């Protein structure tokens, strides 16, 4: 079934995104397009609207509940059981051939599946003179970056990555509102209103598709593309090829047989933004901003490139650093607490490795089946039936419709997202009373907690001061609960570091990991100047002993040294060594940086 779709030409604004999608329809060489944007930004509407723009090209939906077998195809159960025939039942990837395969929320799919999709849409260059077979299907994915990013190597697989933007222009928003309301209240009127425009669009695409094979790309432009790719620090050749193909399609859409510089520029903004190597540290906040000193103008004329188009990567332009905050991102919380802090040193972190794990309990998404080792725990009936089906003719079945032997049994492979547990052990002794220091710490905890939304982490809080260590916050994902506790951390008194470590470790041990690979981290925020003995010994040495105990567990550790000024004492570093964890210095970072670094240290 197919729901009635809002006409493509009825979507207001986002011209760049529409252009990209049209180019993808025109050129059979474009195999993958990723659309990113916050909720309610017409991502899905645009993709749906593409149905029927090229006659015979439909949308094939890839839902989140898809299983691997369903994607690649499997034995036809019905044929096997009823006729004893072994027949292949084509999967979604086959059924999508010649159509658009649409994966909504593609970032929530298991990475392996996305990989499978990107691979099978791209069957390489088609036979000479027959470019239409170059792609098996057009893959379109949509995603909300707030729910998690795609890894960069998967992103690279997409020819274009288009960011949809929203406008705050009241007139435009009103127009959008009017059109959407009309569509839901008087659908036929609404569809009629755009029917002639849709016809023109179809005509234009059809002409462009015919024209495409005659479109030429001058050697000069090819050089420009190569230069651009190099200057933007783009690895591999995919980016450049995508630009060339897209530029041709854009020229064809304009009815031109020759690619002009404008086409190249537009194509570059569509195809290269996501391929730039951006320092992760900046990448979080400024994914598409022009800020790399490596990108220097390729052509003087290009300065005006995409002015007016919001959210795009500027191909050129002097290095005025535009901050582009993606939709849905809150303010930098750190700034609430510590305004005006600047970057102290670049931070290189790896992509988070955790996030999705094969779940060993009976929960999570059923993604595939496998032969069980030993007794099957979580029987995959469908796969079991398929395994048994081909042999039904030769088996003694008695009264049964299907005879199943132990060798047929298959079990489910499930995947679930795993968040980690992060415990903050915060020194609340007198030395932390310095206002700004505590503010940074609070900012850091809050930033990480906000992230807990999408990473499914729990954050707990233990403080130590005077003669005690207290669990201020049991591990939670509730921002509200944490905020209330954080606001009122009392500071003052001495520093019972050893006691704090014991308390934090107890808390970590008490949060039972959900899966074997569930990660637990401990972040110690202190200057290490322990001065309350635990058992009458040297307070700091006692703390080191406990730290060594903790280092023998699977807990990842980070020490944030709050000590400042000279002479520097190395207690924080020694503590970090004893814990076997990473070491950071508070005075060098803002809380936002700190939060990212802690994350990175906790994840790798």
């Amino acid at each position, binding site marked *: *079934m197919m*729901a*009635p779709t809002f006409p493509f030409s009825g979507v207001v604004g986002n011209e760049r995104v529409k252009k990209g999608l049209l180019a993808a329809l025109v050129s059979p060489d474009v195999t993958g397009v990723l659309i990113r944007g*916050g*909720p*309610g*930004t*017409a991502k*899905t509407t645009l993709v*749906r609207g593409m149905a029927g723009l090229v006659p015979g090209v439909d949308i094939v*939906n890839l*839902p*989140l*509940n*898809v*299983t691997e077998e*369903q*994607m690649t195809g499997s034995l036809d159960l*019905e044929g096997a*059981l*009823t006729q004893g025939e072994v027949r292949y*039942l084509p999967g979604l990837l086959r059924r999508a051939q010649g159509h658009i395969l649409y994966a*909504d*929320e593609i970032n929530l799919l298991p990475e392996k599946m996305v990989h499978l999709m990107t691979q099978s849409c791209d069957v390489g260059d088609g036979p000479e003179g027959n470019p239409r077979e170059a792609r098996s299907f057009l893959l379109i994915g949509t995603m909300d970056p*707030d*729910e998690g990013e795609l890894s960069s190597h998967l992103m690279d697989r997409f020819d274009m990555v288009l960011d949809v933007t929203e406008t*705050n222009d*009241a007139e435009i*928003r*009103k127009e*959008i*509102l*009017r059109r959407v*309301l009309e569509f*839901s209240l*008087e659908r036929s009127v609404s569809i009629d209103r755009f029917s002639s425009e849709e016809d023109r669009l179809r005509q234009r695409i059809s002409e462009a598709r015919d024209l495409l094979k005659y479109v030429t790309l001058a050697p000069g432009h090819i050089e420009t593309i190569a230069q651009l790719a190099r200057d933007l620090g783009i690895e591999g050749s995919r980016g450049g090829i995508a630009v060339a193909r897209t530029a041709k399609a854009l020229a064809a859409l304009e009815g031109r047989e020759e690619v002009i510089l404008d086409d190249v520029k537009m194509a570059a903004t569509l195809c290269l933004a996501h391929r730039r190597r951006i320092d992760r540290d900046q990448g979080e906040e400024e994914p598409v901003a022009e800020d790399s000193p490596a990108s220097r103008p390729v052509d003087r004329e290009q300065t005006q490139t995409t002015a007016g188009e919001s959210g795009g990567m500027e191909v050129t332009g002097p290095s005025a650093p535009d901050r582009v905050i993606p*939709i849905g991102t*809150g303010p930098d*919380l750190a700034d609430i607490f510590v305004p005006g802090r600047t970057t102290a040193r670049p931070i290189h972190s790896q992509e988070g490795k955790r996030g999705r794990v094969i779940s060993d309990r009976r*929960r*999570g*998404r*059923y993604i595939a089946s496998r032969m069980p080792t030993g007794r099957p725990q979580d029987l*995959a*009936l*469908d796969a079991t*039936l*398929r395994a048994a089906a081909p042999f039904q003719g030769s088996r003694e079945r008695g009264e049964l*419709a*299907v005879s199943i032997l132990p060798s047929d049994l298959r079990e489910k492979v499930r995947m*679930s997202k795993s968040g980690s547990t992060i415990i903050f052990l915060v020194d609340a002794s007198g030395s932390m009373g310095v206002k700004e220091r505590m503010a940074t710490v609070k900012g850091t905890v809050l930033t990480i907690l906000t992230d807990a*939304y*999408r990473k499914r982490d729990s954050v707990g809080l233990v403080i130590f001061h005077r003669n005690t260590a207290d669990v201020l916050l049991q591990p*939670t*994902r*509730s*921002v*509200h*609960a944490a*905020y209330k506790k954080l606001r009122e951390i009392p500071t003052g008194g001495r520093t019972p570091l050893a006691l704090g470590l014991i308390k934090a470790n107890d808390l970590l041990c008490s949060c039972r990991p959900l899966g074997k690979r569930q990660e637990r981290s401990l972040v110690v925020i202190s200057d290490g100047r322990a001065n309350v003995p635990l058992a009458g010994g040297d307070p700091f040495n006692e703390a080191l002993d406990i730290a060594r105990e903790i280092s023998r567990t699977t807990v990842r550790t980070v020490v944030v040294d709050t000590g400042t000024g000279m002479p520097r004492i190395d207690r924080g570093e020694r503590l970090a060594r004893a814990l076997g964890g990473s070491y950071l210095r508070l005075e060098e970072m803002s809380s936002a940086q700190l939060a990212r670094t802690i994350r990175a240290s906790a994840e790798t």
Partner: protein
Amino acid sequence: MERCRSTYPFAAIVGQEEMKEALLLNVVYPMIGGVLIRGEKGTAKSTAVRSLAEILPRRMVVSGCPFRCAWGDPDRYCSYCQERMASGEQLVVEHVPMRVVELPLNATEDRVAGTLDIEHAIKTGKKRFEPGLLAAANGNILYVDEVNLLDDHIVDLLLDAAAMGINYVEREGVSFAHPSRFIMVGTMNPEEGELRPQLLDRFGLTVDVSGDMDIGKRKEIVERRISFERDPDRFREAFFSEEDRIRDDIISAQNIMGRSIPSDDVLEMAVQTCVHLGVDGHRADLTLVKAAMASAAMRGRDKVGKEDVQRVAGMVLPHRMRRTPFEESDLNQKELNAWMCARFPS
């Protein structure tokens, strides 16, 4: 109308006007997108949702359709109904009561999305789709208690279906799609964790309920509860006429709903309010207008006025103001009202 024995009557719930209004608006106009009810334990959240079943009007569906396709919109009929139409069959309308379908926290993916009918496959060797909760919820209310505790992958399924109103199933050898347009109603206790932003955004309205009220009302709550437990049938009988009246109100509101697109003034006000509050996403603009339309209809008007926008703003906007996630009160209703009155004098 059949009455379920054990349900506390909707009309007997004391106070909690905003919650009741939010629920009724959605029944009148399901396109609003559901309600999220936030509050501590014991604030009649679940009671209200479950009791709603009693006052829900009947709806028109295609007779004999396993998915209860909404009558009169052939473009959105399921594949069975479309096949029947294509074969020249004259479809017949049937009136069925709207239901509250509950999604338990421990529901499996199979149960929610639907799956291969294993029994049928083993018995006959033929594949058949066994509908899940998303099929049962079509045209009805899908209720998730403690929605913030729902497993992520189940939430994904809900979001997927809610996005298009269609549940696409590609699993266990079954490839199937059926309509799944439901009113999502969730309840949660914010102390137990937050909701994923994407899911939060899908809820058209949110209401915060709290237990603190004046002594007189609290006394009344206890008294009613006691007399309900002593003799449920008699207690319920006492509210029959009241419940019938609410149902009639819903039906007449449904009849005048959506006759026309609201005036430019109303659209202007909705957009300006969202822009003023820094609310992202066109969904906010749209929901504000839709809720205002339903609110006007509940009051017997097919023309939406500015006061309707103002009335519902407090339910539409608070959870969409993501720019200030840590402020104690995300939206000060009084301030907002004052601003709206000053900005849009009627």
